[in-house]
């Protein structure tokens, strides 16, 4: 099992969700976050004074998937979240040791 952590642009969330459920992803965690990467913020102006917004709002997805689905999920996120402009986000893949479904006690792939 792997845990896929992806940061995406907030307006892409629905598109990514639809595409992921379309390929059989059955759940994910979504968090509104702020952060910076190569886009590294932008400037705004308030009452005549420019200021830097150092953190950009993003959406963080956390998706636990069976090993067999990892490539497909990453490709789907890549394909749907991409605008080609700076700030599209990143995908990280981590090993996942164990999963348990609380209601039934099922473990690992059965629990996903």
């Amino acid at each position, binding site marked *: 099992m792997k845990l896929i952590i992806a940061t995406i642009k907030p307006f892409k969330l629905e598109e990514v969700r639809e595409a992921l459920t379309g390929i059989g992803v059955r759940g994910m965690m979504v968090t509104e976050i702020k952060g910076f990467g190569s886009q590294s913020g932008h400037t*705004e*102006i*308030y*009452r*005549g*004074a420019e*200021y830097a917004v150092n953190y950009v709002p993003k959406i963080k997805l956390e998706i636990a998937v069976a090993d067999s689905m990892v490539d497909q999920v990453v490709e789907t996120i890549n394909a749907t979240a991409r605008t080609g402009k700076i700030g599209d986000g990143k995908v990280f893949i981590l090993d996942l040791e164990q999963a348990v479904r609380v209601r039934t006690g099922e473990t690992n792939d059965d629990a996903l």
Partner: protein
Amino acid sequence: MTTKTLINTGLAAAMVSALPSLALAQDAPGFDEIGPYIMTTLLFCMAGFLVFFMAAGFAMLEGGLVRSKNVTMQMTKNIGLFSIAAIMYWLVGFNTMYPGDFNGYFAIGGLTVLDPVGVAAADAALDYASVGSDFFFQLVFVAATASIVSGAVAERIKLWPFLIFVVVLTGIMYPISGSWQWGGGWLSEAGFSDFAGSTVVHSVGGWAALAGVIVLGPRLGKYKDGKVNPMPGSNLALATLGTFILWLGWFGFNGGSQLAMGTVGDVSDVSRIFANTNMAAASGAVTALILTQIMFKKVDLTMVLNGALAGLVSITAEPLAPSLFQALWIGAIGGVIVVLTIPMLDKFKLDDVVGAIPVHLFAGIWGTIAVVFSNGDANIVTQITGIVAYGVFTFVASLVVWFILKAVMGIRVEEEAEINGLDTSELGMEAYPEFAKG
């Protein structure tokens, strides 16, 4: 005519039932005698309600332009200052400002006493209005002055020292300087012209605010490494609502300052003032709209709101004499002043949270000068004399009061309290407890 009909209905009924006894009609005063008193009293009441509502306008404007962690404090200051002003004006303010015969510079008045219940026409001030309506109308003005200070010193001042300053401002400072002009004092004798208070009310608030901002210092982190660090307001919808409420209230502020509604000329003048007041606000807003687009490449709503208010302050010294076109450019210049002077204050590290000093002081000075363009009785030397006199008195007196408060009890909250926000640190009550910290 409607009022005349109403007043005479009772008399007419009596006359119809007992036609020969005309003595009744002769004993009771006719409309010519009591009509102007009734109409002017009504004007003061209605205009007073409108100006009262400006307290809500200031509260919403300031609540929208401070950060969410300081909103409860800002609301507390606003309801506190209005209520203190109301009491101080009864205690000493009203009769200090309108002392009757006095030396023209200074007289400390006592408690305000109303007309007796059911006052007879013979005992009423038939050439003016009831004491109650006059007192109420004047006291809502002094509250506006105190509101101006509250916005400028927001987000870092302690509650009680601020309220003590309000006591002095509304009970003593404003009434003394007000008596120079509206109480028939030396500036009024000299021919100074300030119809509804560009100087007497708005600049006075602005000078007191400027002194407070200087003594208090800027908010933590506002000016760092030679750069201005903006602190965007928490709710621009509230700020916009507040501006519209102030705009509405201004019809009472300027229209009521006609101080008479008993003749065709007076009532027509009141409507003329409404039209000019509205025009100046609109042109101030449009000017700020265009100017911020040109200067910053994007329209800045907060400055458009300030622009409308600056237009209103600019026309306040003379809302009656100008044509609509004059009102338009007088208000427009107010809008220019605001957009140019808000960044200028930042250059001097004077942290005025809501733009009260540009709006009320700078546009107030402009409005007082602009009187000479439409009112032939005003002259520039006297206008500048008045501006300087009010400036020196209010600024120096305010500095003294702020410094005394600073020495005696401190006027600024601790660093940690300021960072955490005055709502939790000073009041233990958040305006938006269900929102995450931003």
